[in-house]
């Protein structure tokens, strides 16, 4: 006792920081243990299920549902087109945010619409519409091969073709480079807006409990900040390296600047194409994708301009490094393949919304990076040529986008 008062104990500072957390944990524990003293529930439990995915197999309708309400849900019977149908389910009781797979025996007919109602223990019904029923493709090697082919057609090849503009952009003068960069920004702005809108729309179809449309904006903010962080880190490293280096290295460092911008553009476009692949893959899986020449041609035109966007920043680089360019093309185009795989086999609206958000955020960061390069000799950002480039970029994307509405 005496010793304690004589010598004031030095607590590490983290104790003071952790104390409120510990008290919070104890308080929550007690609150839960005592079942929220003083708080009586009003009304009856609300049962909210959302159907995240529908898989149709011969004589079977498979629904993947998620509980987006606060109360557990027990599906007790299934009604298909006004008739009880036999079924099994993976989870007898679906807890908050929990999922269940419900397999319904039903001799559905190709091309017809169906209404599936899940009847819960309390008699509540959850309605789900199936439009133009068609068999969901099986997830075998052929299927993944087909998805890879689609990704190749709509992602990798068009971007690669677009990059063939490199020799041309290397030849034009500085004013037209600025125009092309402005064009790229216009094009990217279109993609960002499209990604935000598409993501927000998809977000409304899934379980809102995960955040709904907020997921899109969170994804966008995260990607924007993460890329800004990476960029700042790269600049910092380069700056310190340049200080210590001789003239030759400094020269080479500057030479890489165009590729750094191109890499950022490629990453932004790649993340966007991931979302695009997702949309294509999931549309294919429900049979709502007309896999025809029109679609492929449309995407080719749409995405070819993305290739131009990648090569515009490297116009003033002295060396055209083929391996680097190929890598940039893959970074921008290949995610379409990955997206198509995910979209067709493990589609989840919340995930898709998040991915679209990430794509939009990444593109916004790329725009911020490229924008200074379109300044003209007088330092103006929105000079007539730049505005012309921006508007042309928007217009081209709008026009080619008309060809690929799913």
């Amino acid at each position, binding site marked *: 006792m005496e010793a304690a008062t004589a010598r004031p104990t030095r607590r590490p500072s983290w104790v003071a920081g952790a104390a409120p957390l510990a008290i919070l944990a104890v308080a929550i524990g007690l609150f839960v243990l005592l079942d929220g003293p003083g708080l009586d529930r009003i009304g009856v439990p609300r049962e909210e299920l959302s*159907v*995240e*995915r*529908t*898989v149709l197999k011969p004589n079977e309708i498979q629904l*993947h549902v998620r509980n987006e309400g606060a109360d557990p849900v*027990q599906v*007790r*019977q299934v*009604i298909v087109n*006004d*008739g*009880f*149908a*036999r*079924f*099994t*389910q*993976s989870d*007898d009781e679906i807890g908050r945010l929990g999922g269940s*797979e419900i*397999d319904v*025996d039903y*001799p559905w007919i190709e091309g017809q619409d169906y*209404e599936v*109602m899940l*009847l819960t*223990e*309390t*008699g*509540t*019904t959850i*309605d789900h*519409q*199936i*439009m133009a029923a068609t068999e*969901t*493709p*099986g*997830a075998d090697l052929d*299927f993944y091969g087909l998805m890879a082919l689609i990704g190749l057609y709509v992602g990798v090849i068009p971007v690669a073709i677009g990059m063939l503009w490199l020799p041309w952009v290397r030849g034009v003068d500085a004013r037209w480079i600025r125009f092309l960069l402005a064009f790229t920004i216009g094009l990217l702005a279109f993609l960002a807006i499209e990604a935000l809108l598409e993501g927000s*729309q*998809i977000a*409304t*179809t*899934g379980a809102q409990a995960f955040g709904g449309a907020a997921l899109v904006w969170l994804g966008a903010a995260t990607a924007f900040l993460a890329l800004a962080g990476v960029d700042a880190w790269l600049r910092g490293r380069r700056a310190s390296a340049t200080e210590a280096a001789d003239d030759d290295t400094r020269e080479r460092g500057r030479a890489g600047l165009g590729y750094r911008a191109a890499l950022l553009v490629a990453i932004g476009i790649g993340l966007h194409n991931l979302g695009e692949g997702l*949309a294509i*893959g*999931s*549309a294919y*899986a*429900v049979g*709502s994708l007309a896999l025809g020449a029109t679609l492929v041609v449309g995407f080719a035109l749409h995405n070819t301009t993305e290739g131009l966007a990648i090569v515009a920043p490297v116009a003033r680089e002295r060396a055209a490094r083929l391996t680097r360019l190929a890598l940039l093309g893959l970074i921008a185009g290949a995610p379409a393949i990955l997206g198509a795989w995910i*979209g*067709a*086999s*493990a*589609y989840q*609206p919340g995930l898709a919304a998040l991915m679209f958000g990430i794509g939009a955020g990444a593109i916004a960061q790329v725009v911020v990076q490229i924008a200074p390069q379109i300044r003209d000799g007088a330092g103006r950002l929105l000079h007539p040529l730049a505005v012309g480039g921006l508007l042309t970029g928007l217009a081209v994307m709008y026009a080619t986008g008309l060809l690929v509405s*799913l």
Partner: protein
Amino acid sequence: MKIGQGKLSRRKLLGGAAGASAALGLHQAIPHDGLHHAVDDAFAQDGHGGGHDIHGGGGVTGHPLHAGTVGTVDPRVNKFDPQEILRDFDEGSVVNGVREWELVAEEKTIEVAPGVKYDAWAYNGRVPGPTLRAREGERLRIRFTNGGRHPHTIHFHGIHTGRMDGVPGVGAGNIAPGESTTYEFDATPFGLHLYHCHSMPLAEHIAKGLYGAFIIDPKRGRAEADELVMVMNGFDTNFDRSNEVYAVNTVAFEYFHRPVVVRRDQLVRIYLVNTLEFDLVNSFHVHANFFDYFPTGTKLEPRDFTDTVILGQGERGLLELRFPYTGRYMFHAHVSEFAELGWMGFFQVTG
């Protein structure tokens, strides 16, 4: 049954429904699955219409793959059994020449399809309420107590004074929670009638389960028969003013899973009452047989010899038939939608 009108946009479809199946394992059948086997066994008995049942008729071939609910309703949960309701006639007790019953309206959660609960209002704890049976000309006295939380009445079909009609504002009118009244009148005319609550909102008070069959036998009686009561009803479990579940005597597919057993050549008399709300008509159809039909049972001669009758709300009638062959015979509403939502059953005809 209301049919969903919502059309999905393509975009919504894109987001909401997609994907191939990554074969997920770990399926567990939901509980109450004992039934599946019970049904299979029952069907196996008839052996696809062949075997011992060479007269045919009972031939339900194949597996009932696409019909029926999953699971069974344990009668112990509801504390009443549709199998017993079928042949349960409540003749009350005769005191000083007056036939008397006690009826109590109460609130009770019942299971209308396996695992699906419904907060019902019930006379004497069962839906439908007890089948009251009297003889033409008797004096009847029904003591009614409202044990619920809402006002209720009992309105009997029949010929009696307005004061005894059990409607709000006339005679005893609405009976408040905890209050009682006595309805007294003569049993006339003979036939098959019904009784039900007549408080407002009317459709709700009926749909929630306050109804029952009311039989007045003719003075000279009817021919000896195996008598069955079938109250055709339905339940609006999600309060959209259309029924999700249809049944005879409350439990969906009850007689599909546990067929009604009758004897070959025995006269079977069915007291059929339609208490369905929200749907304008209901119907009854028996397979591989015909029946004499006595609408409302008020005449002793059949009006029709048929295999299908249509009944509007509150309509009822007597059916008389004999099964000339053993085997399994389906009966159901010929409103096919109701049939597949629970109003479907079998007669099992034994030798």
